[in-house]
Each structure stands twice: as C-alpha cells, then as structure tokens.
C-alpha cells in the first residue's frame, strides 16, 4: 500500500490517471514559476496559484504529490524554481523553506477542502489561506535557521512583501477552482 495511491498488481485506469494528473500539475507549477505578473510591491508568479488549484482539484494527497514532483525536477537541477533557479542548493538555501512548505501546504489545504461535500467560496478562501500560512511558516523557519535572521526581520523580508500578491492569488484560485469544479467532475 502506497501513501499516495493504492497499488494494484495490474494498474487500473484510475491510478494511471492519478499519476498523470499529479505529474502534469507538477509541470504546470514549474511553468507557472516563469510567468511574472507585475503587482506592487513585488511581482507575483503563478507558481503558488497553480499549487492552490492542484490541491483544490486533486485533493490533499495528489496535490502534495504534484508538488513533490515539482521539487524533484528542481532538485535535479532544472531551473524551475522562481527566478530560474534550480538545484538542491536552492532547497537547502535561505529561501528553500517555502518550497518544502509547498508540499505541506498543498496537503493540508487539499485535506481541508475534502471535509465539506461541496465547499463554497468562504471555505475555499479560508483553506487556501491556511495553506499559505503553512508555506510562510516553513519559509520563515528556514530564513531564521539558514540565513540567521531574527524572527521580526524574517517576517519583514519573508512575509510582508508577499501578502497582497498572495491575497490576490488566493481569491483568483478560489474563484477558478469553484468554476472548474462546477463544469468538470474529476474522477480520481
């Protein structure tokens, strides 16, 4: 029994589909990291927006798996992290905490959205907000530990500049997820 999906000796259609969904959303996260949209104070990338959608549409486990795939591609050295970075060094560097937080954030956010049968907009925004908080938590922790910043300084450089952008992304992702869920029933 695997953590992410059940294993059958002969793979069923659903399990192949789950695999493909997770890897394509991992790829989409990587592609999203390249798309910059200018927004004061710091430009935003679509990376976490696609993370929210992956977790909301695929659920906690598959959402987290898609982010693990994204991280593995990055660790292998492909320049898929924000700003064209790649390699294990980025993950272990000062800003690597956010990337590790992606997996945890996607898992929790997906799980939260699995609780109600048909999540509405407020619940959607709350769950994505919690996911974002978890990403910040990991990010700030690593900033403190690796870059040796104090807590207040870490929050100043690692959370405050991104608040507006992330609020926009959470709202956009909630609206998009609701719209997509209305039209498409995902089978996994």
């Amino acid at each position, binding site marked *: 029994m695997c953590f992410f999906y059940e294993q059958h000796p002969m793979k069923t259609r659903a399990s192949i589909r789950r695999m*493909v969904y997770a890897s394509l959303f991992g790829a989409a996260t990587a592609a999203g990291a390249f798309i910059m949209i200018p927004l004061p104070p710091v430009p935003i990338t679509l990376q976490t927006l696609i993370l929210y959608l992956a977790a909301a549409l695929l659920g906690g486990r598959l959402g987290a798996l898609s982010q693990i795939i994204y991280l593995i591609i990055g660790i292998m050295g492909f320049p898929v992290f924000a700003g064209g970075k790649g390699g294990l*060094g980025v993950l272990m560097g000062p800003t690597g905490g956010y990337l590790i937080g992606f997996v945890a954030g996607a898992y929790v956010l997906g799980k939260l959205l699995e609780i109600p049968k048909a999540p509405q907009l407020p619940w959607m925004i709350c769950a994505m907000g919690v996911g974002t908080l978890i990403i910040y938590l990991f990010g700030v922790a690593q900033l403190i*530990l690796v870059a040796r910043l104090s807590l207040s300084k870490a929050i100043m450089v690692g959370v405050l500049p991104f608040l507006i952008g992330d609020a926009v992304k959470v709202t956009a992702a909630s609206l998009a997820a609701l719209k997509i869920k209305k039209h498409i029933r995902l089978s996994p």
Partner: protein
Amino acid sequence: MYRMGQYLLRDSRVHQLDPRIKIVSVILMSILVLYGEPVTQSMITLFLMVLLPLSRTGIRPIQQALKPMLIFFAFLFFLHLFFTHGTPIPPFPSWRVTLTYEGLYTGAFTTWQFLLLVVTAAFLTMTTSPSELVGAIERLLRPFKRMGLPSDDVAMMISLALRFVPTLLEEIARTRDAQTARGARFNQGGILQRLRAISSLVLPVILSTLRRADALAVAMEARGYGGGDRTMLQELSLRRADYVAMTLMGLFAGAGFMTCTSLGQTLWPVFSQPS
C-alpha cells in the same frame, strides 16, 4: 524560447560516469558546502576548477547558469552587509547605515557558499542528460520499493513532468496573448481588474492541462502501461572508472566531513546556533 536544462553533449570522462554517482556526489557536496567551513569550501572550489576542464563544457554555460542568480546573490550580500552588528568600517561613518566588517565577511561568505551550490548543480545537469537523471533516480529509489514507494512510477511521473513543462509554458504564453488581444490587462488597472485578468489566464490553462492529462492517461493505458513489470532500455551498470570516481569522491567527502567536525561544527549546520 526557453531551454529546458542545459545538457551539453560532450565526450568526456565526467559525461561517461554513472549518473547515480554524480547525483550522490552533488548531494554530498551540497551538504559539505552548507557546513559553512572556509577550508572545505576552498577544497570544493578547487575540485570544481579541476572538474571544469575534465568535463569539457567551457566556462560560458556556467556563466549562463549563474546569470539568473545574480540578483539573488546581490540581495543576500547586501542583506548581511547592512544588517549585521559588529565593528563598523571606518571610512563610512557619515552614512545612515553602518557597514561592519562582520557584515562584509558574512555577506561575502554566504554568497560564495551559494555560488558553489549553484555551480555544483549546474555541473550535474550540464554533464547528464535528463533521461539519464531519471533513470538514476529510479535506480536510487528502488530500495524503497519494499516500503511502498513505486520507484518506476515516480520515474515515469518525473519524465512526464519534464516533458510537459515546455509545452505548458508555451500554452500559458499563447493564452496570455489571446486574452490580451481580448482586452485583458495584466500590468495595469486596479486589483480587481488584475484579478479578472489572472483568472482569464488561469482557467483556460488549467482546463487544457486537465484535458491533456486525460488524453495522456488514455494513451498510456492503450499502450499497456502498468500491465506488468517494466524494464529499462539501458540498465545502469558500474564500470571501473565509476568505482575509481566513487572511491575518490568518498575520500574527498570523508576528508571534508573530518575537517568540519574537527573544527567543531555540529553534525547539521542548520541547527547550529545563529550568532
């Protein structure tokens, strides 16, 4: 257009090495670099300088790999320069901010550290093709198969994702152009307008990603994926050169770790107390 990875086809000793050894070496070196010990960092710098002519890649691709990191390096350097307490540097007493010797040292040192990490990772991707890398990861994860980690599926997922990053990137760019032509504005207007513009970009992209995934799943099933055990086209095997490299790397890493621990570093640098 954007190029995925920077694999350079050359006929060199480094290229011919078993990819598994290269991956493990990069991980070992990264850990060594993160110890933050000047002696080991000089050792690794020397090692990379030896590797450069051996791998026959030339200096240009390394410059290209470092280019996107320049802003990050500058940010890191100045962050430490301006925000470290210590003895102030005399020539600049009249400035609003005080620059300190400690700040200069930590800034330069941390930048050096991350420069090494980036160059090490760049060497791996320059000398190893993506399919070799995926094959090596599959082989390295195989021992975890008993714990329920499907290593062949993971490898398949990685290669799928790698294959689709450029495709999706192109798709996003095309959708962005299409929506701009229809009046969406991504870089002007209030927050509400941008929100709408972003949704108009993301919705079509996600829908087409899902559509692609469905088609791909059907295609894989039609070709019998998962119908039994998979075998590799080229099974990795260690040759004499690989054993030599492995021994050298082992000695190098061993020496590095010895230096670090004898200089009083804790086992894991991250948990050492911030000064």
